[in-house]
Structure formats: structure tokens, C-alpha cells
């Protein structure tokens, strides 16, 4: 019997529709958690969530790296289960979130540093820079690498006659926030004229380029002799970039390493969402430009099952999950910060 083409195509369409509608139910895990936010967290999260799903096969986590601000927005709009941001929510964002679904619990999940990378042919590795020199470079007051101030900080090095080009993040970024937080803290002039934010108006006097993402900044620094820019520690280590040693509050010039970031974090054991800045810490081995990255969760979870899954997930992320941080050049959270995080997670119901 010859099946009529129309009947055949109708059956095919129906089959496809059925699979599309119900197939996802067959293959979906029992809990599918969705989060969005900071791009800084993405390398760590993608590794950690994968490992978690291997052990807890009933949970799968989907993370969208769309940026800290967008993550907060999506979280407030309840399109995602958790948001991730390099900067905890400010009062306006908290008010909006409270109006949306009540109290928010913010938990530190990752720790990283901001590295000052440069490309100066003939300059030594680990150039010494003081906070004042760094501010002056980004303000445009020091505009050439052979400036006397830089030579004084690096005796014996032959810094060439090369104009300085500063490279900053053109997209809104938590890295910019941490860096400008540090500059604002060490220079009241910077604090009043430029300030601290994920996106700032960089001083016009400096010859400055904006680039998109850590890759963009690194690319510009690599391609322009005389360029200096700021990138995440993880990224700089991964790509073997030349970076500066910054003078910390105790007067020593410290290079950014996992250990020096960890030492800085240890100086401030009690971080919370309202008091979270760890730049410019005391301590001989502290690196001065570091910051935590935070995850936002609703205190009152709308769905009990997903709520349990979320709390379990992040209890794991801040505890055993931190072992995967080192592989991707993130600093594992100090133990007291882990305790604080677990306590905060315990308040979720």
C-alpha cells in the first residue's frame, strides 16, 4: 500500500513536535539551575559546575557570562536562579531586588587579583611601580616611559623614550571596579575626579585606548609598544604576560601571585556585602589590587526543591569546589571566608 505523501509528512511533523515538547523532559536532569553574571567567574564556574554535575548527576547548572550588571538585572527579574557579580549589589540594586522578591543573600565565591601588564621593549620584567606612579600614568601626568619618576623607581633599568598608552576596559567590568577602587583609595584626586565604578570616564589627558574584555586589553597591550593595561590575574598567568610589581601599603613591591593575593585576603577576614573591598591591604606580602566575586541568591526560595539544590551547590562551591580554583589560576577562598559563606547560605530557606 502506497502511503500518501501528505499523510507521511503529517506523521513526521507530529513526531518532531512530540519529541520537541516532551523529549526535553526525558533527558533533563531533575534540577536544572540557571545563573548569569560576571565574566570573571566564568572559567572557574564552568570547571566547578561540570565537576559538580559529574558527582551529583541529578543536577545540571547553566551559567551565562553576560557581565556583572546584567547578571544582577536578570537575577532581580527572576529569569535566573542566581546572579554573579564582582561587586555586591549597591543600595539601589538591593532596593529593586527587595521589591521584586524580598531579601537577598550574597556569598563570596571566588577571589582574584588585577594585574598591571605592560609592553615596553627593553624594560625589565616585574617593573616596580608605586601607587602614585600608577595613578599618574593613568591620569596622563606621566606620559613617557623615560620619565624620571619611573627611572627613580627602577634604578639600573633602561626605560626607552616611548610614549605611554594606557589600555582600559571599554565594557562595564568588575575588573575596572576593583582597579578604580584601588586608585580611588590611594589618590583622593582620582577619587573626586574619576571615582570607582564598573565603567568610568578615563582621564582625557592620558593617551588611552578602550578594549573589549580581558582578551581585548591583552591584545592591545601586546600589539602596542609602550602600552600598559589592567587584566585579571587568571588571564595574565594563563597568557604569560609581563606584569608590574606594585608597592603595597607596607612599602614592599609585591608581584601578583596566587600567594600574594591570598595574603591580602587574609588581612580582612570578615568580608560582607556592604564591606567587601580588599584593595590596598596591610601586610608585607599582600598584593594591593584584589577582590572577591559574589553570588546572589534569594533568601526565600520560590521553589523548595531548587532552593535545596542551589544551597547544596554553593555549599560545595565555597568548600570542596575551591580545589578546582587553583587549576584555573583563581585563589581558593580563605577558610574563615568559607565559614562566613556557609553561614550566609544556611539562612536560605
Amino acid at each position: 500500500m502506497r502511503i500518501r505523501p501528505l499523510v507521511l509528512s503529517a506523521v513526521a511533523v507530529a513526531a518532531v513536535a512530540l519529541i520537541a515538547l516532551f523529549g526535553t523532559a526525558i533527558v533533563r536532569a531533575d534540577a536544572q539551575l540557571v545563573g548569569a553574571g560576571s565574566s570573571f567567574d566564568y572559567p572557574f564556574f564552568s570547571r566547578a559546575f561540570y565537576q559538580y554535575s559529574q558527582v551529583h548527576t541529578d543536577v545540571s547548572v547553566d551559567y551565562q557570562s553576560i557581565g556583572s550588571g546584567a547578571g544582577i538585572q536578570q537575577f532581580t527579574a527572576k529569569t535566573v536562579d542566581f546572579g554573579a557579580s564582582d561587586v555586591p549589589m549597591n543600595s539601589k540594586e538591593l532596593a529593586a531586588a527587595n521589591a521584586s522578591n524580598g531579601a537577598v543573600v550574597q556569598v563570596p565565591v571566588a577571589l582574584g587579583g588585577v594585574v598591571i601588564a605592560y609592553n615596553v621593549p627593553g624594560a625589565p620584567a616585574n617593573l616596580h611601580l608605586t601607587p602614585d606612579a600608577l595613578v599618574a600614568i593613568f591620569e596622563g601626568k606621566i606620559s613617557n616611559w623615560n620619565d624620571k619618576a619611573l627611572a627613580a623607581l627602577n634604578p639600573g633599568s633602561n626605560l626607552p623614550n616611548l610614549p605611554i598608552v594606557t589600555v582600559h576596559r571599554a565594557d562595564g567590568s568588575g575588573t575596572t571596579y576593583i582597579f578604580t577602587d584601588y586608585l580611588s583609595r590611594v589618590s583622593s584626586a582620582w577619587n573626586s575626579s574619576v571615582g570607582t565604578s564598573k565603567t568610568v570616564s578615563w582621564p582625557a589627558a592620558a593617551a588611552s585606548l578602550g578594549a573589549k574584555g580581558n582578551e581585548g586589553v591583552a591584545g592591545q597591550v601586546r600589539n602596542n609598544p609602550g602600552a600598559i593595561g589592567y587584566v585579571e590575574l587568571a588571564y595574565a598567568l594563563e597568557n604569560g604576560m609581563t606584569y608590574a610589581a606594585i608597592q603595597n601599603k607596607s612599602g614592599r613591591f609585591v608581584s601578583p601571585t596566587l600567594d600574594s593575593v591570598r595574603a591580602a585576603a587574609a588581612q580582612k577576614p570578615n568580608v560582607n556585602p556592604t564591606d567587601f573591598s580588599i584593595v590596598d591591604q596591610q601586610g608585607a606580602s599582600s598584593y594591593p589590587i584584589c577582590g572577591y566575586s559574589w553570588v546572589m541568591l534569594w533568601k526565600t526560595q520560590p521553589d523548595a526543591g531548587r532552593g535545596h539544590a542551589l544551597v547544596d551547590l554553593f555549599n560545595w562551591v565555597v568548600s570542596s569546589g575551591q580545589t578546582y580554583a587553583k587549576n584555573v589560576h583563581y585563589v581558593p577562598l580563605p577558610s574563615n571566608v568559607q565559614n562566613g559563606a556557609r553561614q550566609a547560605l544556611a539562612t536560605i530557606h
Partner: protein
Amino acid sequence: MSQQTVDIATAGLRLTSTRLRRAISPVGDRAFLATVTGAAWLVLLVVAGLFVVLLIASLPAIKTVPISSIVSTAWDPTNGKYGVLSFVFGTLVTSAIALAIAGPIGVACALYLAELASRRLAGPLGMLVELLAAVPSVVYGLWGLFVLAPIMRTMVEPFLNKTLGFLPLFQGPFYGVGMLAGGVLLSIMVLPTVAAISRDVFLAVPNEQREAMLALGATKWEVLAKAVLPYARSGVIGALVLALGRALGEAMAVVMVIGNKPAIAASLFAPGYTMASVLANEFTEATGSQYVAMLIEIGLLLFVVSLVVNVIARTLVWGVASGSRSRAR
């Protein structure tokens, strides 16, 4: 147009609007007419709807940000400064550079493909040109960042500085990235549009035109310049307008090579910023209703600028086309 032609045209319009509906009886034809009319109206509605939605979403910024703040170059959203002049300047300059480079080269390429290339060569070559249009914008951006920018910085910009350095356009330090790099990258991206459409337009010129010129004793070049190009002028301008439209709105490629500095400078080597780039960079992280509304307002501005440029170009086309046709008579 002669009065006779106008009479026939209006009569035809009247015929189409009322008598057609009565004249068409079969249900299939009526349904087809309805579907096609509906599709046309849908397009109009989408465009109008887009405009309305953009307008509504940018109202918080339109109401709270004063015009004096908008018409300035200071872009500092953290401190409430929303000057968009540098973005408008950057958009217009990069698009102008793109068209200035891609226009002549694209038309020349199309002329070669349509008129002068042997048939064996024209096919594959034409396909290669159209392939350029298929490359995603992001790939262009990455190529621009890692290949074009170093070439600009080490070869092109020093050369321009040495030879044309007396012009303020070509003075100042070179970083590779900047307005010129953005313009050059855009020109590569819009080249296939110009070339492909122009080639089709040239192929559509009736052979009688060429043969008539040849019969009068014209050389190959005179045939092209005096018979083919004038006939195809409106089509070529249409191609350039489409290319301009693409250049105005291009975000992902430009954002990687423009330097992202919201400032207006006289030099083409200086970094700049375009409207599409600032949206690509800052939209995902923008918080605060005024900031987001301001970015949407920039999107609305881009929409309006594209529309205005298109209308100006189309008016030029109509003027040129009807002028050339009346002169041809």
C-alpha cells in the same frame, strides 16, 4: 514625465485599487492578495513598532537628561553625564571612510566582473566577492584586531603621516586602532554589498544600449562610461545606500578596532567611538534606569540617523534617476 504617461499611471492605480478587487473572483487569488498585502503591512508595522518601543523605553532618559548634556562629548554615566556627540561623529566618520574606499573599488570590481572579465573568470571571482559578505562580523573584528591593526600601525599610518602629514587628518601618534582602522575594516565589510548589487545592475543594462554606442564608433571605455554607467546610476547609488546602512550599524567588528575613546579628534589616527560600539560595550553591564534608558536613546538615535541618511540618499537617487531619464528622452 509627459502628461500622457501620468494619465495612464493614475488610471492604472485607480484600476488596481477598486476594480481589481471586484475583478478578481477566484478565492485563491483573493487569499493570495490578502496574504501579500498583509506581509507588506507587517513589515511597516514592525518598523513603526520598533520605533515606538525604542521611544517608550528611552523616555526616562529623554525626560530627565537635559539637551545640553546630550549635545556634548563628555560621556560619564557614573556621574550623570551623557554626551553623545563623539558617538555620532565616530559613526559618521567611519561610515564615510568606508564608503569612500568601498564605493569606487566596489563599482570598479563590479564593472570588471560584468563587462570585462572572461566568462570563465567572472563566475568564480564573483562568488569569492560574495563570500566576503558571508563572513561573520565578529570574525572581521578579530581579524581587524590581530592582523589589520598591526599593519595599520607599522606600515599604513606611518606612510600616511610621512606623505600627507601636513593635513591635520594624518597627524598625531598611531596606535593601529582608531578611526582609520575602523573605516578600513568597514570598507572591507561593505565591499561585497556594493560589488554584488552593482554587478547585477550592470548586467541588467540592455545590450541594445551597448550595441548602439558601439555602432556609433565608441571605444570599450566610452561604452562603459557613456552607456552603461549612466543607465545603471540609480541602481549603483542604491547599492551604495545599502552599504552605508550596513556601515552605520556595524557593532561587533568596529568595537574591536575603533579604540573606544569617547572623544572627537581632528586626526584619523586617533581612537574614537561609534553609537553601535558603545551599545555593544556598555549595554550588558548598565545598571540604573537612566543609564539603560540613555543607551536605548542612543539606539533610537542610530535608528533615526540611519533613516535620515537613507532618505537623503533616496531623494538623491530619485532626483538623479528622474533627471537622467528625462534627459535621455
